[in-house]
């Protein structure tokens, strides 16, 4: 195996070049630039003055930013926890089915996941429509017979968007759970059944401990994904109470693009960046721990 290391370097350089160019341009540079920008008072496009930590102090005292953080956390709790539990429950049900029936049922649960957010927005906007939405037949009886504008009622906004998000994203978690269930050997269940273990005992003693790692995986993936919530909130809040429904990515967009404060927008982006990076490191450690087993 004698190969000139020079030609190997050359080959590597050619193969790595597109990657290096793209990463330099769209990952490394923007990341560094974002940090730099966060210390200036620059507009979105154009130069600015160095202002030190001013932008960060402004964020700390801006009640809209704290609203954005709280709403983001609130949304994550509302969407990730029920989404994970529901996906597991449905996975247990779907897993019992066989053949074409399983394919159809799985497709029914999975199909929403591959839709563009704009389509989800249109479908649910229509479902919940105050005047003609079919969901009003369920909502009105709970509201003294009055139809309700779900997306214009502040306390209902986040739960409604979280509900739609669960509907939209469940398919992803469902697939992971089903794969996890398939990995559990049938023999374990057979042995348990011979011992006279009932359905619940089997779930508690076998399924749950073995599916637990997948649950953690699903949970962390969804957690990181939903922290980046923007699209649904933006689309559904258009024309409504923008600041009551503010979330972090929306805040970045608002400062940088709508109010033309590039520096402040970058500073809020850095905060989101740090939060997600920390969580991702934790997720990565979990994954490594799993693979190490």
């Amino acid at each position, binding site marked *: 195996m004698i190969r000139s290391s020079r030609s190997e370097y050359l080959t590597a350089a050619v193969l790595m070049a597109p990657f290096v160019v793209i990463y330099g341009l769209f990952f490394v540079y923007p990341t560094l630039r974002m940090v730099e920008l966060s210390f200036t008072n620059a*507009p*979105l*496009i*154009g130069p600015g003055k160095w202002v030190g930590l001013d932008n960060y102090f402004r964020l700390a005292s801006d009640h809209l930013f704290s609203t954005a953080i709280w709403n983001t956390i609130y949304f994550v709790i509302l969407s990730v926890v029920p989404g994970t539990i529901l996906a597991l429950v449905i996975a247990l049900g779907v897993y019992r089915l066989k053949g074409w029936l399983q394919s159809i049922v799985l497709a029914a649960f999975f199909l929403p996941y591959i839709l563009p957010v704009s389509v989800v927005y249109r479908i649910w906007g229509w479902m919940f429509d*105050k*005047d003609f939405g079919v969901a009003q037949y369920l909502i009105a009886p709970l509201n003294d017979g009055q139809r*309700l*504008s779900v997306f*214009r*009622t*502040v306390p209902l906004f986040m739960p409604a968007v979280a509900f739609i998000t669960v509907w939209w994203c469940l398919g992803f978690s469902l697939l992971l759970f089903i794969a996890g269930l398939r990995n559990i050997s049938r023999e374990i269940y057979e042995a348990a059944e011979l011992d006279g273990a009932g359905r619940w005992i089997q779930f508690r003693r076998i399924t749950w401990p073995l599916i637990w790692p997948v649950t953690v995986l699903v949970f962390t993936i969804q957690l990181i994904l939903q922290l980046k919530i923007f699209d649904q909130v933006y689309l559904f809040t*258009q*024309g*409504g*109470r*923008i*600041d*009551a429904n503010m979330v972090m990515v929306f805040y970045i967009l608002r400062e940088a*693009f*709508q109010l*033309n404060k590039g520096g402040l927008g970058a500073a809020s982006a850095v905060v989101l960046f740090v939060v997600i990076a920390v969580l991702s490191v934790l997720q990565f450690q979990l994954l490594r721990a799993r693979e190490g087993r």
Partner: protein
Amino acid sequence: MIRKVLFATLASMALTVSAARAEDTIVWWDFLSGGDGVRMKSMLDEFNKEHAGKVKIDATTSEWGTPFYTKVQTAAATGQGPDIMTYHESRMPLGVSEGVLSPLTPEELAAAGIKASDFSPANWKAAQGPDGKQYAVPLDIHSIILYYNKDLLKKAGLLGDDGKPKGLDGVANFDAALAKLTANGVYGLSVPNDGGSGWRIFYTLLNQEGGQFLKDGKFLDGDNLDKATTALAEMQKWTKNKWAPTNTEYPASIALFTSGKAAMHINGVWEVPTMVDLAKKGQLFDWGAIQIPVLYSQPATWADSHSFAIPDRKGNPVSPEKRKLVLDIIHWFNQHSLEWAGGGHIPAYLPVQESAEFKALKPNSDYVSLAKTAVFDPVSIYAGVASPVYDASGNYMIPALNGEIAPADAAKKIRDDLQALTK
């Protein structure tokens, strides 16, 4: 022979090709949807037909308000964007401060035949920046009005012999009228619950009390805060007493009125075509529209103005040839603004505004009086469409209207939020 025919065909084809080449395309952005959109679309079609082979306007309509103005700003900053766009005069100070507007020189304006004397002085001046340069040319003046259902008002004894409502002036009378009209599942009033509408009504009431929203760089200073509270409290009273429904989306608020489920409706003049068209189809009761009643000490109505402007596309300015075409287009639209007036607006162009045709136009003539006491948004980089003031309305005025926060708290929050921006 065949050759001759072939040659002639080729020659004529060549001619049409070169004619097609000579056609200039002007990119146009606006935010006009609903009734306004329909009217503007037909005016654009008319313009394109009239100028076929010479100029073609390629129009895009975006979502009104923040989405539109955000797009304009980011496009201009990166050398993109249209050749001509609609722009609110209320937003002129903010637009100039963002550097998204390109000044129109006196020579350009004169060359296109656009004269300051063809506009009312205040209207013309509102399109200027703090530097005194002209940044836009107004197309209209628009305001909010009170739409009413004649049948329902008559039943409640609130209709005069002239077909106009009577006894609505003064808070006590207005409230009493709403109470009387609210019966049998019919609301006395419907108003759209969006930030823009909230601001328009609030600002009207505040000015009727003689209040000033912004004075010497201070928002709701001194007793203006109390006046703002009074205005918001009155708005909250409407929903609290169930005279008006809560959380009414813009289209729903109109539907409530047109379906006879609300006796009166406060909204912009731009919804006049909605009523006119429905009435034409025989799907609407006998209706009318008047200036907002005077609830407090003096008449006043919020007003704004749609104007035309050229964006300052950084590094890629609109070419002089196109600028010339754009100014001609602006002039054409002003000369044809009688059609635009059919959309409920008052034309900014005085030769049309003072014409006999406009004076005869119904229902415009019933509320045109409001122009004399119209109040425009504060001249400030914090005011105008898609500005912090409009945001504050969506965030505090609408919740106050719906009874979610106390009027005094809302007024204080509005003041504090806006004042914080000036620091």
